[in-house]
């Protein structure tokens, strides 16, 4: 259960986008508002609500906090900075 204290606050989350995600959003970054206790899962849903052009990519997006991959259960960091990108294709 989420306590009222943690749902009271709203945080601004800035998502840095790469490759096809950046192209679809037509922007390097997207900012969304989320509850203070939000996780990457909530962010994924919020991105679809805020940026409809990202919807075809949503289920395929990977997220990172700093230089580490962040799974759906990971809380949004206090910095409010998250990275999102579609499957990698280096090499």
């Amino acid at each position, binding site marked *: 259960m989420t306590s009222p204290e943690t749902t009271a606050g709203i945080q601004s989350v800035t998502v*840095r986008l*790469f*490759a*096809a995600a950046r*192209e*679809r959003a037509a922007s390097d970054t997207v900012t969304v508002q989320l509850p203070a206790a939000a996780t990457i899962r909530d962010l994924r849903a919020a991105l679809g609500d805020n940026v409809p052009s990202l919807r075809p*990519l949503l289920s*395929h997006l*990977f997220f*990172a906090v*700093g*230089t*580490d*991959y962040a799974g759906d259960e990971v809380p949004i960091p206090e910095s409010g900075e998250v*990275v999102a*990108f*579609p*499957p*990698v*294709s*280096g*090499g």
Partner: protein
Amino acid sequence: MVELTREPIDFAALTEAVRSPACGAVVLFLGTVREMTGDKRTLRLGYDAYPAMAEAKMAELEAEARRRWPLHELRLAHRVGTLELGDISVAVAVSSPHRADAFDAGRWLIDRLKEVVPIWKQEHWADGTTEWVHPGLGAS
């Protein structure tokens, strides 16, 4: 040692850097820009990266490879920017006392790089269209 660079990859220098009297084997893998994918013709490739994480993940791959195999030296380099046909996009160079470890480590490094390092290629097709390559997704 790992490197993300916009400059051409000097594969001869990378190979020299891993050579050693302690080793009986050096393996070098180069990824190069291919013209044909099925019946589609590529003019050039654009490579983009999330640099801080790409270098961090490449460093993690180096550490993991050194745990798994008795490697003497290792170089991992990936280029970003616009690459023409035949250009080198990635280089893996490893040295070890015996060849099996060098082959296995080199294969593992390039395979894992393609799975976890945040770098993306964009096809510039001969028909004038562009397409980000995202394995598991359709054309984007």
